[in-house]
């Protein structure tokens, strides 16, 4: 039995070509796979342009207990036993957008042409189009264990920023710790 997978930003920041280049080929080929046309607004993976030189691909994390599914009152977000993820049933979708509001990643969204909810379905049985096309090879369809390797680094990255900020503060005083100490 195949394991559940999700698309992960498998960056290698120590390589100049190991970071999302911002080419958006993933968006174009995702929409081609889904609809047979090119349209980044219908893509299930979106590249977010943060600043000059910082582009980050974001897509569905295939949550264990999906907020989108919980928010849907019309059984339009259903569990696919074969893929072990939830997928959108276009038939049932009433375009109410409750799932869009519920998603913590802002990644389930409305298709501007069909006006139905869209989310990553890992391209069903075939190799995900975004993974296949990415010239920098920074998108991967990983199972839970492999994804954990990257998620762990993400968590560490957040703490590393924290360390950096604390180090930069003159005197080394940390207002958060101070607050906590006062409470105690």
């Amino acid at each position: 039995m195949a394991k559940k997978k999700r698309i992960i930003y498998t960056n290698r920041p120590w390589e100049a070509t190991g970071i999302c280049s911002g080419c958006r080929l993933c968006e174009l080929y995702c929409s081609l796979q889904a609809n047979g046309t090119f349209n980044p607004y219908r893509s299930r993976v979106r590249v977010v342009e943060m600043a000059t030189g910082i582009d980050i691909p974001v897509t569905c994390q295939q949550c264990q207990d999906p907020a989108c599914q919980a928010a849907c009152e019309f059984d339009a977000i259903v569990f696919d036993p074969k893929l072990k993820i939830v997928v959108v049933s276009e038939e049932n979708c009433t375009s109410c957008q409750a799932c869009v509001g519920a998603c913590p990643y802002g990644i389930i969204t409305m298709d501007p042409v069909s006006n139905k909810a869209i989310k990553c379905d890992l391209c069903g049985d075939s190799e995900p189009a975004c993974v296949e096309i990415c010239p920098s090879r920074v998108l991967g369809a990983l199972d839970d264990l492999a994804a954990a390797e990257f998620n762990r680094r993400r968590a560490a990255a957040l703490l590393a920023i924290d360390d950096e900020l604390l180090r930069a503060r003159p005197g080394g005083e940390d207002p958060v710790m101070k607050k906590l100490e006062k409470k105690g």
Partner: protein
Amino acid sequence: MKSAKNCYAGKILRIDLTSGSINSEALEDDLVGPLIGGRGIASKILYDEVPPEIEPFDPENLLIFAPGALHGTGVPAASRTTLTCRSPLTHMHGDGHSGAQWGGELKRAGYDVLVIKGRAQKPVTLIIDDDRVELADADRLWGMLTSRTHTALRDETNIADLQTVCIGPAGENRVRLSAVFHNGADKGVNARCGMGAVMGAKNLKAIATRGTGDIGVVDIESLKAAYKEYVEIINTDPHPVGGTRYGTCRFMYHRVQFGIHGAENWNYGAYPWEKLDPEIFRSDYQIKAGSCVACPIRCRRDYRVVSGPFAGTTAKVEWETIARSLTCGIKEPEGVIAWANICNHYGLDIEGTGDTVAFAMECFENGIITAKDTDGLSLRFGDTEAFLEITRRIAMREGDLADTLAEGTKRAAETIGAGSERFAMHVKGGEMTAGDPRGMPVRAVSYATSTRGSDHLRSNPYIEEIMKPEEALKWWGSEEAADIAKGLKGKGRMLKFSEDLVTIGDILGLCKFAFYRSATFPWLYQKGVTLATRFYNACSGRNLSEEEMLLTGERVWNIEKAYNTRCGASRADDTIPQRFFKEALKGGGPSGGTVVDREKFEAILNEYYEDRKFDPQTGLQTRAGLERLGLNDVADDLAARGKLFGN
């Protein structure tokens, strides 16, 4: 929302800023059929609607935005959008091509071409949000740098993915060296030919666009098959691999190999370049390997200065940024990056500005311009502070000297006089670009014949460097054509072919680095002609042959040539600055001591004219040559103006 049958949106959007009218019309088959898209359609609209009686800054001049026919699809490196107008710099055909996402948004909103005419009473922004097209007040944006304009528009509209084009203060001030910028300072730029000034003259500060419709593709399987073949080539061909590693900075090694820097206003072929080594840029300044939309090559580079007085400065830097810095004698990456930052934020064209500053520097070194004129600025080659300050002043037209320089090299030399004309390095008013042509005669001719003033992207003369003698014999009838310095026969034919070849790229919206540069000629042909045609057929549903594709390039070239003839150009204008003929290249190195041999130059030009079916004596086009391309209307128009050979 538009339907999505093929790669065309099917409409032309026309805006008249004087009356505020907004109209759309069908993109007719008589434009698409023979001209395909992008630069092809834009050049024809300019020819038909902007006769030479209309001056560049007149409201009747047009700004024609035309994304390449394949822009917005997933064809690799189909990222280019053409902007065409009558150029205030050359007074002839003007266009520029940028790699950014805006053109795709325009097509997704439903328009293949955007034609802007007239002049608004006061600053306006054009907003195209799918079916909603309107003009909005831009008083608040006027005066803003390109970067600020972009973020202000995103803030105002609250659309995070909004794609914009805008001008900076340079365009507003009608600096003839200004450009049009996509998404602020660091994305694509429609540069050359001073088109920012035309946008400024129209009081059009920006265009904000979002389009959420589909762009279609007729034959998905053949598109994917061609994509696969394309990737196989770029993974084998060492040329694109170098682009991925270094960005366009890689051309430094080419310039060093041939000793053709053109440093210090095109005086030095070899020059101290060591601190500008691509490897140093890569290890010490590069943020990452970035890319234009849909491009697997990833040669876009943003660099950041980490320490020193310019610490924190970030800018998109292309090879030409470095080359033009060398033209001004700048030898350190910090100076290059800081200068790119100023040009990009104030809205200047790097190439034109760099050459104009170099011209001013040579005048200063020779006492034609003095410290009194520069307001105390020591405008010497290699003085970074002066380099940056004069650039900013040009953008703002601050002071008499900068105001003069803002008119471009040719006009500045005419105003300054006193023998400065011999330091003015331009062709038809367009400043020099790329490498020094001394030691490479066909390169010299290619700068002369370009339809938008001196240009290295208008043709591909470098193919002489990659062709084997037997290939040259097969294609150009002479093995000589593969000999860079000594060869003569076949070079004119090679030039004509390479001009038609890269024109295909601008028509389809394909990047020239990704499609028209390779380490061997077979790869180049496979990508630039065979695959380009297959990509187009797959996306459009048409069935063009490779010959028809090349013929389309030739057709478009002839329209532009006719436009320039109509504006008064003749064979006498198809030349290069006298310096290249008369003064030996300084600094030693592989091309040191050479000049462009005038006899060779003329011989190649003659062969080129013959192959183009132009009259060699006058440079005028012939009826037979034009009718062969189906350009009977152009022939009639030239005849009526007494500009057709034999009429």
